[in-house]
């Protein structure tokens, strides 16, 4: 069994194999999909599921964005509270935490590592069904009625059972059970990825020859495994608080609501790094491939992913500067928050440096990557305002915070997801999409996104609190601009869905390596065969050696 070197496989050398049946057509029928243990199919199922969640939560956002165009609330305050709670809960638990790791991560981790599948394929399928179960339980909570606590479930408002035991606790208990189950799915994905990266790398692929998307997915998996159990116990204690009123978080019985915030944010801040680290991984891939230039500062980016994974566990208190937490603890958390900002800054600088002297193709994936640099940098910089203690006292729980986390989560993770989808669409589905259509999508999304959320910075600094169904008329102009922007953004995303689905049906057949990339997933046919590689690939270079790199001058630099 000869192992062809990566070079030959990429450029269809003599070792190229005739087209075998790909994973989509290898088995037929719904049952083959429902019982598949192929990491690629599970990735596709996750992608479809999470994007559906994104669609639903996005429509909810458009509904209350329309309502916010006028100072009074047409929906009514109770319905508004329920809508923003659902928007938050669905976006965080169902969409954005599994989206990149479980969809693109599941699909491309084994391919990039040059192995046949993840370490525990059946556990992988189980994690998908646990996700589906969690989704159903959360939907049951929505139907059960008044879930209006916000996705943060702060006590004592989230303790719905009264002193004498009456009170409708069903929606709250169902929602926490749903989030508990979804957390479990996240843990299973994390365990799978860590073991796969440790134990199943292709021969010759040392840690420094792994693609940066794999590094980012590894760091994300570490956070998922270390943080999610604490969410599980927090939700369990909240359930016990509602059912038995044990009183740990309920001040009426001697508990401490700030303790609940410690428990909650110990998970939820690392969770925001679960959301953004895979996005960093995608951007490191796309920016290097589409500028045909070795990624700048590979070691710095790889190590900063792991550094973020660790430091992210030290900073959760910056969500609680005004919560009555001790001022000394607030100071410590503020200092550590600035420590976690440095690795992120290093990454952004390295990406911009990668563009220097590259051969940059302006395709859809690159345009989304450049958009990411624009929006994520704004998101990151505004994080510094919120990290500074005195300024955060003013900005906390205002629209400034809403704008910041949308710039980081939507401007970061969702734009990177779009960049990743456009980068890997040919490999996943074997079809090419229309670049012209994609360009319209990028423009719409860029304009809509910035219009929606940049105005919210000023709303927040002017004094508009979060989660307000009705507000002072003085803020109305900002809200009108923001709502119009959100409709443009909605249109842009809908248009993206349309042309991608169109491309699925009648797109051109995609070649094995449309972008001339150098990492292992492009060394197999598009879409890949069920066992990914005809023979185990042998790796002897890192995944960023493009033929376009001018070797002659290379000797002088290395």
């Amino acid at each position, binding site marked *: 069994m000869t192992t062809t070197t990566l070079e030959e496989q990429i450029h269809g050398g003599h070792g190229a194999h005739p087209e075998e049946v790909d994973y989509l057509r290898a088995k037929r029928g719904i049952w083959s999909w429902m*019982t598949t*243990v192929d990491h690629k199919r599970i990735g596709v199922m996750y992608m479809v599921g999470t994007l559906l969640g994104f669609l639903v939560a996005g429509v909810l956002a458009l509904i209350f964005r329309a309502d916010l165009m006028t100072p009074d609330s047409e929906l009514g305050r109770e319905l508004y509270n329920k809508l923003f709670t659902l928007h938050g809960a669905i976006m965080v638990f169902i969409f954005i935490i599994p989206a990149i790791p479980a969809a693109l991560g599941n699909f491309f981790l084994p391919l990039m590592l040059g*192995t*046949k*599948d*993840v*370490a*525990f*394929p*059946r*556990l992988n*399928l*189980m994690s998908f*069904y646990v996700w589906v179960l969690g989704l159903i339980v959360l939907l049951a909570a929505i139907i059960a009625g008044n879930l209006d606590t916000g996705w943060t479930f702060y006590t004592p408002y989230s303790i719905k059972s009264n*002193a*004498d*035991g009456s009170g409708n606790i069903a929606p709250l208990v169902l929602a926490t059970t749903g989030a508990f189950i979804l957390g*479990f799915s996240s*843990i299973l994905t*994390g*365990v*799978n990825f*860590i*073991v796969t990266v*440790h*134990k*199943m790398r292709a021969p010759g692929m040392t840690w420094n020859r792994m693609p940066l998307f794999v590094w980012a997915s590894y760091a994300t998996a570490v956070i998922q*495994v*270390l943080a*999610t*159990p*604490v969410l*599980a*116990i*927090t939700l*369990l*204690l909240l359930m*016990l608080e509602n059912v*038995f*009123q*044990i*009183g*740990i978080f309920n001040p009426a*019985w*001697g*508990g*401490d609501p700030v*303790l609940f915030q410690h*428990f909650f944010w110990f998970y939820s801040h690392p969770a925001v790094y679960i959301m953004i680290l895979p996005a960093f991984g995608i951007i490191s891939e796309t920016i290097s491939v589409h500028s045909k230039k070795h990624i700048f500062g590979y070691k710095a980016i790889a190590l900063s992913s792991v550094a973020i994974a660790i430091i992210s566990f030290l900073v959760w208190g910056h969500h609680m500067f005004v919560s009555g937490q001790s001022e000394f603890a607030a100071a410590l958390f503020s200092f550590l928050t600035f420590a976690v900002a440095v690795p992120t800054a290093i990454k952004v600088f390295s990406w911009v440096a990668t563009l220097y002297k590259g051969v940059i193709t302006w395709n859809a994936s690159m345009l989304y990557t450049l958009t990411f640099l624009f929006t994520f940098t704004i998101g990151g910089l505004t994080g510094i305002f919120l990290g500074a203690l005195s300024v955060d006292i003013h900005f906390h729980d205002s629209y400034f915070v809403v704008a910041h986390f949308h710039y980081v989560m939507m401007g970061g993770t969702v734009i990177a997801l779009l960049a990743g989808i456009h980068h890997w669409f040919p490999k996943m589905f074997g079809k090419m999409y229309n670049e012209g259509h994609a360009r319209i999508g990028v423009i719409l999304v860029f304009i809509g996104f910035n219009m929606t959320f940049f105005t919210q910075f000023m709303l927040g600094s002017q004094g508009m609190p979060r989660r307000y169904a009705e507000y002072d008329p003085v803020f109305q102009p900002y809200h009108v601009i923001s709502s119009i922007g959100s409709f443009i953004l909605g249109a842009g995303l809908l248009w993206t869905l349309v042309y991608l689905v169109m491309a699925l049906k009648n797109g051109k057949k995609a070649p094995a390596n449309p972008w001339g990339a150098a990492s292992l997933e492009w060394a197999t046919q598009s879409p890949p065969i069920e*066992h990914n590689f005809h023979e*185990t690939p042998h790796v002897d270079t890192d995944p960023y050696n493009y033929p376009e790199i001018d070797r002659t001058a290379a000797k002088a630099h290395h």
Partner: protein
Amino acid sequence: MSTAHVGHEAALGHDAHGDGHDHAAHPPHLRHHFDNSGQQESAAKLGMWIFLATELLMFSGLFLAYFVVRSNYPEMVLEAHERLDKILGAINTVVLIFSSLTMALAVRASQTNQRVQARWYLLVTILCAMTFMVVKYMEYSAKIEHGTLPGRFYAEHVQDLAAGVEGTLDRWYGGYQLFFGIYFAMTGLHGIHVLVGIGLIIWIMWKNEKGAYSSEYYTPVENVGLYWHLVDLIWIFLFPLLYLVK
């Protein structure tokens, strides 16, 4: 990979992550995506240790809640834990540590190809686990009868013979519901883990009877062993904190 496996594992909740027990090409237990059994075994072991990490972190939340309540209301915690039966707690500790021993010997037996010995050790482990649950049931029923329960269910009948006083404490006057909230959360969650452990060991015993395990392939036994030792480990910390500490 027949569907039976998938449903079977999902039903068990978080199963032992050594899922290499189906019948691909030679050797029988090697799964297709692994290059050799060494790689598969180390992968399963690492997966199990990471899963144990998540269990540890989950229980750490409960221990933190205990220490916070203890630091906020020290006298209340010290008085409340007088109501726990030290003897029953001690018995449970001995039973659980003994089951940990027999589990370790079961793993050793299957490592050294002694399937029959493994069967008996596993059986003893299950019996010890069940004794643990029975003792727990006795403790819980005593508490329900005395009314020392969490939250609004708390209504303890007080008979202070020295002060010649009798009456019912409830959470308005001097009730210890906060402590018993933590007590039932910790021991309840631990009890559930013991029950899941019993289920896993029975599954391992059944597979052992069918001759699945040998010195060539015993990863599932080892992983269930690791899980069981973790359950014992948590009780080793639970017992002094809840029952003993003055």
